[in-house]
């Protein structure tokens, strides 16, 4: 199968910072309560009148620049907070990037969105629809959070991250390949070529949809013709139950993706999971047997940015030298749906923008 290779990465967060001091005062809680339960010290929020597309355009532009490209052949945007209920946000993002005319669509898998969008982008390449796909994760959860809900208000932040996927050469499969060997940096055509996405594991469980949801605003509520209670128009999450499902599903998904790639836990240089909550990251790593030194995290600075969190964490880690070319990286995420997923790649030699 034709592989998809990461050849550029960019990220963007809005300039407005919300600190725990400000939140604690506004929500009637303490800085300590927020920090011990979430591991988050600050988050960014979009300015009044700003939108998901604004963040996505900035991150997309940076990813294209990082890939030394002017164009991509398709745009896939992972988001749960589109600019409008209809149409999708991706076509506007594509046009604002000067890519008018290319196929463009949104993918909604909530916090697993980036992995679903990356798999979708890899599929567009495998089917020959596109040679280069811009995959963006962008969310503005500050626009759907209930201002009276201290838990979700403390956790979520706004941001965007993007990668460019290009069509790989034959044999550029992720993982160690059948022989159990892997290529070194720049060995094009060898199994495990740098940046090639490994096999994906993706899954869902709709029976638990209501653990993470916005009850009103969709067809179920609108067809009833009744006004919805104010709280139902906001994002709602059953935190402790979600915590358990998140850890259990990401453990399973990581093990499955590693197995398909032919990697062992000890082969992993970096675990980059959806930045949901620092304690979920710690529990996940402990249960997998991955020591804290191999866990990539930037949640303390940006909070949970939903679909943006994995590319934001990757870009930040690459920028500070925490991720280097050749590192064996496993990506995993969990989110509303429920949805979850994982994949692998050996980090490519790229400069994040």
């Amino acid at each position, binding site marked *: 199968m034709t592989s998809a290779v990461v050849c550029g990465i960019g990220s963007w967060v809005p300039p407005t910072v919300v600190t725990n001091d400000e939140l604690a005062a506004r929500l009637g809680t303490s800085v300590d309560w927020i920090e011990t339960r979430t591991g988050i010290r600050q988050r960014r929020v979009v300015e009044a009148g700003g939108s998901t597309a604004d963040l996505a355009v900035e991150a997309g532009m940076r990813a294209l620049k990082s890939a030394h490209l002017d164009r991509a052949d398709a745009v896939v945007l992972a988001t749960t907070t589109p600019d409008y209920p209809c149409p999708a946000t991706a076509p506007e993002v594509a046009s604002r990037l000067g890519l008018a005319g290319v196929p463009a669509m949104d993918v909604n898998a909530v916090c697993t969105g980036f992995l679903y969008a990356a798999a979708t982008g890899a599929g567009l390449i495998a089917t020959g629809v596109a040679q280069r796909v811009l995959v963006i994760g962008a969310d503005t959860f500050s626009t759907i959070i209930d201002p009276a809900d201290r838990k979700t208000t403390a956790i979520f932040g706004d941001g965007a991250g993007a990668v460019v996927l290009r069509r790989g050469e034959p044999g550029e499969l992720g993982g160690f390949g059948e022989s159990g060997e892997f290529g070194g940096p720049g060995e094009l055509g060898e199994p495990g070529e740098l940046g090639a996405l490994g096999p994906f594991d993706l899954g869902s469980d709709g029976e638990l949809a209501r653990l993470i949801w916005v009850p009103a605003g969709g067809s179920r509520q609108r067809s009833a013709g009744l006004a919805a209670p104010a709280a139902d128009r906001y994002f709602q999450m059953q*935190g402790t139950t979600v*915590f358990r499902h998140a850890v259990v599903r990401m453990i399973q998904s990581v093990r499955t993706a590693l197995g398909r790639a032919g990697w062992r836990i000890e082969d992993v240089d970096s675990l980059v999971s959806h930045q949901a909550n620092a*304690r979920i990251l710690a*529990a996940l790593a402990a249960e997998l047997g991955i020591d804290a030194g191999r866990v990539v995290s930037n949640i303390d600075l940006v909070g949970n940015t939903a679909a943006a969190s994995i590319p934001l964490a990757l870009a930040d880690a690459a920028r500070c030298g925490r991720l280097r070319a050749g590192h064996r990286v496993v990506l995993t995420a969990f989110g509303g749906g429920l949805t979850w997923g994982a994949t692998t790649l050996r980090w490519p030699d790229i400069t994040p923008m």
Partner: protein
Amino acid sequence: MNDVIERIGKLLTSRFGVPAAEFSAEAVLSDLDLDSLALVEFGLVAETEFGVKISEDEVSPTDTITELATLIASKVA
């Protein structure tokens, strides 16, 4: 029962940062700084240690170690 309490103590002191001096059968979970998320984490660890599933609605931060041990013992039996 004492065996279960002892094993809980080992898990809490080695994995959850509970000081050994503060652990006792009568201790209340929240007094050991175990909040609702810690109890979910404990449930995951206990699944491996005791081979039983503990869901988050079965245990509360206001429970004592003895109450937690009774719950686990009833599931093991």
